[in-house]
């Protein structure tokens, strides 16, 4: 995973999982923070055929997302909860649950610190 911005870069190695059967065996989900997140107002997103860029109009900072971090971002802002996004990522990528939890929490913290997402603590959305 790679997020580039004016404030540096974080890297986590993860590979997209090829076999969903092995995912079921290895995945032991950890608990993530409760609630869900949405894209913050004043943030523009540009899908770049797999990668993406987020632009915060509030501070004019941009954040480049590579394919993995963009997938994480998309799941975070579209899932009914952070936990659901985490479980989905665990299914999709060949990564240890604890490692993914740490990566996802760090990523979420980075997004929140930079005003790119807003936390909504009202639990899962109704269908």
């Amino acid at each position, binding site marked *: 995973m790679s997020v*580039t911005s004016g404030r540096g870069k974080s890297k986590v190695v993860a590979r997209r999982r090829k076999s969903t059967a092995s995912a079921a065996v290895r995945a032991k989900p950890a608990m993530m923070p409760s609630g869900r997140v949405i894209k913050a107002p004043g943030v*523009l997103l*540009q899908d*770049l*055929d*797999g*990668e993406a*860029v987020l*632009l915060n*109009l509030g501070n*004019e900072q*941009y954040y*480049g997302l*590579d394919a993995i971090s963009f997938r994480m971002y998309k799941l975070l802002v579209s899932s009914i909860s952070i936990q659901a996004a985490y479980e989905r990522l665990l299914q999709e990528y060949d990564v240890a649950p604890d490692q993914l939890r740490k990566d996802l929490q760090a990523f979420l913290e980075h997004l929140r610190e930079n005003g790119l997402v807003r936390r909504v603590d009202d639990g899962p959305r109704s269908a």
Partner: protein
Amino acid sequence: MRLAQVRSAEDSDRHVSMEPEKATLLILNLLRIPAGATQVRQRWDFSASDWQQLAESADQLGVAPLLYFELRKAGRERDVLTSALQDLQRSFHQNAARNLRLYHELAAVLSRLDGLHVPVIVLKGAFLASEVYVNPALRVMSDLDILVPPHDVPAALEALKGLGYGLLIPPWINVGWHVEVASPDCLAHVEIHWQLNAPSKYHDLPVEDVWRSARPARIAGADVSALPPEELVIHLCYHTAVLHLYRQGLRSLADIDRTVRRYKSSLNWQEVTALSLARGLHKVVALTLHLCRQHLDTPVPDSTFQELHCAKIDSNIEQTALRQISSGPGAIESFPAGLWRVLSEESPMGKAGMLVKYIVSPARTAYQLPRAQSRIMAVYYVLRRAMYLMQSYGRTILLLLRPVTRDAQGAGVNLHFLHWLAS
């Protein structure tokens, strides 16, 4: 392990820099769109320093985002030096963010103009990124260019002032067919055009024809107009060759290549040639299309060159154009391309006459702007423009006014090349 990484150690103490023209040709080669799945995967044997220089040159020549995208699309990321690829990716993301910001601004501008019923043709980057490249991250944009009918210029200016925009430079510095304004935070510059070409006795792009043939488009969420493909090809050729003397890097060639491919099925080449001939642009269009076909495999039919009376392009002319491209966009600021054209006249009297025209025509346009609707202001603008040009470029102007000036030494513009383009 990648070849480039293996070679990096032995290259680290060998700081041999690549010739700019060689870097330009290599980047053009990397940008060639593969002819299909059957194309042989070309092996690259670039050193680490070569890769680094290619990444830097691609950035300077305005095609770093496009190069990154093409490398990624072809699945060749692993064949590129990691740090060079990261530089290219950074350019790609930066450009995407910048264009995102510009389109956000354009949406507000177009909405305001639509509210005032001012018709707009979206020109150059904003149109190309959205409609030709389709992926708005691929085309580097420095500003937003819109064309409005001449009588709507004051209304458009007032509309943008209502959004907080202000004149970026004094009107006497403007070149006579557009006015440049900047957003309150200076992050977005908008050029409001009312003509497509600089005043010239050689070339003309009648704006009435352009409005007549304009077609609908949807850009930045607004219903606007756009140039038809034939006018677009001619305008792009004119812009890069005549206005910028090819010093816009590779971006312009990529624009034309993508435009031809995008509208390949509907592009009427006979109309392109007929319009180019009628406007005195046949050599300009032929040379530019030749460069695209030669270096990017742009699908231009042979018959087009024959009809443009340029079936064969002089290799010296082609080499000069490539040198101009390789010199990059930075050099254009050193001396206005318009002045080069003016001063490429053969006789001293011809030069002086064109120089007067170059000074007076834009000042007359400034006179038509809302703030300058009196004769006194018109005279003031003419004097200020003459002073500005002499202060900024006086020494070079005096040098070029001399009768025997075959080559503009030090500035790298070959007057023979200018004469060829104009003839």
